[in-house]
């Protein structure tokens, strides 16, 4: 789980673990660079990736990860989801884009797009 905002990380982790649907947060990061390192260490089933982050954006991090492992499941999570972001995400091979807002939809999205 990647987000530069501590509140969001805490909130998402709480929502996911509270939902207790077999989901577990194996690691989190505050920016794109950290996300790649953490991904290599933990090898998660799915990455919940914030788009707007310092140093390296979510799309940039996704591009790097997907170049290395094209079938890695990634869900882009952003406050701003415009058509351009959708298009770029789709081109990269990101499974889904979920708007920030209703946190309760996150576990469902993780099940839906994070598993085969």
């Amino acid at each position, binding site marked *: 789980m990647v987000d530069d905002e501590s509140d969001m990380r805490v909130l998402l982790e709480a929502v996911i673990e*509270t939902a207790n649907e077999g989901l577990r947060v194996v690691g989190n990061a505050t920016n794109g660079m950290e996300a790649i390192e953490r991904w290599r260490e933990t090898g998660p089933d799915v990455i919940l990736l914030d788009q*707007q982050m*310092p140093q390296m954006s979510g799309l940039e991090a996704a591009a790097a990860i997907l170049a290395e492992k094209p079938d890695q499941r990634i869900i882009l999570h952003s406050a701003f989801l415009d058509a351009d972001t959708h298009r770029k995400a789709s081109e990269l091979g990101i499974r889904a884009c979920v708007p920030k807002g209703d946190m309760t939809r996150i576990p469902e999205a993780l099940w839906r797009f994070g598993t085969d």
Partner: protein
Amino acid sequence: MEIRHGLTPYRRAAPALVGGLVAIGAIFGFFATRAASSGPTSAEVQAAASSAASTLAARSEVDSQLLATASASINGDPAEGDARVLARLDRLASNDRTVGVARVTPSGTVPVVVAAPDSSAATIVGTDLAGTADARLVLELARDGDQSAAVVTTGSDGKPVVIDALPLYGTPDPPSDIGGRRSALRGYVVTVTPVAALVGLSTGRDEDIAVRVLDGATVLVAQGRDLSNPPASPVAESVTANGVPFIVQAWATPSPSALPWVVLAVGLALAVAVAVIVYFRERSAAAAQADLVARNEELALIARAGPLLQQSLAMGELLPVFVVEVGAELALDGISVSLATPSGDLEPVFSLATRAGTPTPVPASLVAPPTSVRSGEVVTVPLQRAGRVVGVLQARAVTGLTEPQMETLLGVCALLAAAIGNVRMFQDEQDMVARLRDIDSMKTSFIGSVSHELRTSVTAIQGFAALLEANPGIDAEHRADYLERIARNARSLAALIEDLLDFARFERVGLTVDLHPVDLSDLVPTIVDQLSSVLGGRAVSTVIEPNVTALADPQAIERVLANLLSNASKYTPPDSKVIVGLERTPMEAVLYVDDDGPGIAPDEREKIFELFYRSDSTARTSRGVGIGLALVRQLVVHLNGTIDVEDARGGGARFRVTIPLAEHEEISLQHPEPARTPLGTGG
């Protein structure tokens, strides 16, 4: 342009042509007048001789009749009293003749003229008619023959005179024999006539003919010029008058006339005068024409300069073309153009090197340009637009500038000034467009920032609230953490709203501050205490120098500190330390906020105070909308202070605010009441 100072070949030849024509006329006149004054013809000479001879003959005939008449009037007797004789003779005398009577004196045979009718002839009274042997002989022949006789003698005026004498015997009828005549002779009646009168030479004959009368070889009378050199064979006429044979000679003596020479001299003088007049007329005409040509070229330059200056709106393209064109046309060297800077200084922007290689210096002061310029002088023309000097053109006039050329230079400089104005206006417009574009982009970015800020906080508040609501059995530690996060995001929203309200308020009415002495040493720690919550758990410490009283507004100080602390919290890690310090310098209170974050790059230290400005890195790493620091700067300006950012001692950023101390109140109070100042102009 060489025509300017010279004459065309035609104009150069014109004086010689006209002068030559007049000179040829003078030479013609010379020969014509000389031919016209060649003197009388031979026929005229012959006529003059004949006229003189016939006059001589005719007058001698008249003489004879006169003598007879005179003799008859006194009955052939001269013995009567003088008065009676004179009365009778008076009626007979004419202007050119003297009639007189000579009596034989008792002593002998000498007849002496005793009476003459008018005083002019008085000198002949007493003349001895028989003064010479010739005369005696003539008189004796006349006595014996009872006939008139003539003798030529010298008159009292030294000129030859002819004396005609008719014997008087005392009776109307003379004795018939010689002896009787000799004994009866009482005297003579005489006429005395100047020879000149006799031949009529005094009647105004042509002066170009010389006439002379000879008695044998003796010249009796002569008239005309050059009498001393008679020709070898003059025209001659023989004539006998009163029995005396005369020869009349005539020849032509043409006068050596000066007229042809006068004509020639006057003609040549006229030729020279005409040549000189024509030369000066042509020269003045050529000069006028050259002036006209030059004026036309100058007008053409003005006409060319307009389009030339319209070709570009870039100073660097305009000036070289313009300067080269004007320099070539007006023979200017080392032209330089300086433009007025906003501070009023003149800054050279373009110069064409002089031939000497030294640039013309920028003038220290401006004076009105002269009406004309001497050769080699430097001319300075202010470039004016709308009454303001926008620049100066300087150049050395290689051949000087006449008044019309100077007018031309002023004309093209006026065009240049207008073009410079256009260029500047265009640049200003470009700058304005760029600024507006920047502002537009900043506003877009601002809206993005505000949305992100709102969305993040609202999402967190909603999320944690929903979590708490859905999980009433959550443990106390997590519950407290979530509530704290809800509260912090709510504060963040409140701060954002405060910023937006500040901005809106400021945009609407401007900032107002109420300046009075404020004990910052007391105020600053209090504010820091109240605001420590915005630091999100970051440790804050204060370093306060006591008794620092500045001329300030406590509310403004609070807004400044709140924004600087909020700024520190946004751009530093959660475990950072923040230091708030207060110091004094001789004139100012210095308030600073240090953090140990990444610091501010030098090229952003000015920009961060601009409204809506967010550097690429901060826009992506942190929350914020770009209002806080712009507001801080405006507040500080209204406190008559300054704000800048530098490296903090610990490596982060130090925001340093200075405010005048209250001791210097009188200086501070002179600051004008802050007017409404848009935040956006703060950059």
